[in-house]
């Protein structure tokens, strides 16, 4: 970590009340001698203070509107969580195998073009019973796991690599800050998985200077994902719990490959959502991308 990075972190932690006394002493000793850090410290404090003080009171109609919907039954009543049984696990595995065994041989070009993907989507509809079972129980209980496993993309690997990079905040006219960002991007663009592996997605190649969305687009072009599901319209609720990556012409949602069938099935049956294509591209990959077109 460079000196500037280190002191920026100390300043930030101090502002949040997360710095111990000895580190705070070190920070203030540095601020005594460094006018630029002093200036940045003031700026960071002003911005933070502004963000914290600038809190509006929500209108009363927020609470009343929500509770009216809840009490009147306009909002669907929540169901108790269902434990994922061995049967459901078996069914979901069986569904995956069934698709590979029964669909793949009939589609020699599977995953190589949108035509075969459309056909695959059609074939998938014949699997709807198993998938629905998985969708109802499997995805619902999985989606939260997925969302937060996905958030673990800043692993040791990322941080260690980033620590080797040069200063990331002052040198915007330098290649270094972009490089530091790539490490975040590559992990978050590939790490949506239902395993605990920090390394998932790290083998996906990254070019320097790409944003997170560009990395996903490139990975799609290179067939790096297990499956690419393209949709248009309003999304079912379950997808709102995942990390979204915001591109100019689409939103990318990364989900564990094991949830692909459940998600595709849900998207297909969702009334306001149009499933445009579903391409199975790389059976070795552990992440599926859902492309939501604008």
């Amino acid at each position: 970590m460079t000196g500037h990075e280190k002191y920026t972190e100390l300043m930030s932690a101090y502002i949040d009340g997360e710095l111990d006394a000895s580190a705070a002493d070190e920070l203030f000793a540095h601020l005594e001698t460094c006018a630029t850090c002093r200036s940045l410290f003031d700026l960071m404090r002003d911005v933070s203070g502004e963000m914290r003080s600038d809190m509006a009171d929500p209108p009363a109609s927020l609470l009343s509107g929500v509770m009216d919907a809840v009490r009147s039954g306009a909002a669907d009543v929540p169901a108790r969580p269902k434990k994922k049984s061995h049967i459901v696990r078996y069914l979901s595995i069986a569904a995956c195998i069934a698709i590979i065994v029964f669909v793949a041989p009939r589609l020699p070009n599977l995953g190589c073009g949108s035509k075969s993907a459309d056909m695959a989507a059609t074939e998938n509809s014949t699997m709807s019973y198993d998938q629905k079972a998985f969708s109802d129980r499997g995805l619902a209980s999985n989606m939260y796991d997925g969302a937060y496993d996905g958030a673990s993309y800043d692993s040791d690997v990322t941080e260690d690599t980033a620590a080797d990079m040069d200063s990331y905040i002052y040198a915007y006219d330098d290649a270094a800050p972009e490089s530091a960002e790539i490490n975040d991007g590559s992990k978050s663009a590939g790490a949506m998985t239902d395993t605990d592996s920090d390394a998932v997605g790290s083998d996906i190649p990254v070019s320097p200077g790409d944003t997170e969305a560009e990395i996903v687009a490139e990975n799609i072009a290179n067939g790096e994902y297990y499956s690419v599901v393209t949709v248009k319209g309003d999304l079912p609720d379950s997808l709102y719990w995942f990390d979204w990556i915001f591109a100019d012409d689409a939103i990318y949602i990364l989900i564990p490959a094991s949830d692909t069938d459940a998600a595709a099935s849900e998207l297909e049956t969702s009334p306001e959502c149009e499933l445009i294509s579903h391409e199975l591209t790389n059976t070795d990959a552990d992440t599926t991308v859902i492309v939501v077109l604008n």
Partner: protein
Amino acid sequence: MDITEERAAIDRVLSGDRNAFEVLVADNQKKVYNLALKMLKNEQDALDVSQEAFIKAYTNLGSFRADSRFSVWLYRMTYNLCIDLMRKNGRANVISLSQEDDTGEVSQMEIPDGRNDPVSLYEKKELAEEISIGLSSLQPDQREILLLREVSGMSYAEIAESLNIREGTVKSRIARARGRLSEFLVKRGTFPAGSRHNSEEVSDI
């Protein structure tokens, strides 16, 4: 509301007590609304999205995991709903540092000399607006974690636990987000240029 009370309220809702949801709304509405307001910059949209987030949370409460905070679960939903609405309203093109960089040589970019202008001269409203624009320029993961920290006031340990990342990562990502945001504001001329490290110092690193 501590996590035990939160869990008790969720259990009551799941047992069929609809009224029990009210405490969860009351306890989180200010943070949810402000998160939406900071993202959308429009009171009506912020209200609509906040209501939608709570209703979706209610409907999906069965899939909420007991070992996590309801609030963080809710903030993620709110955040995604905001992005969704921005997309639908055609506000997808956020201002970003890299886009500005594409318009010309960064080294030639003029940074207004505001050295003698104390920050207090800026209207508070203008500063809030500039911060809001600056937030849009951040990488999504940086923006999210900074908003979680500043709007929700969660500790690093709480954020780390909620997002399933290490505390050191929380610390460095928030610092990076603040650094970027500061950089952006200096570039925009919101703050004096003296707030930025000069190029000699950077090249020494």
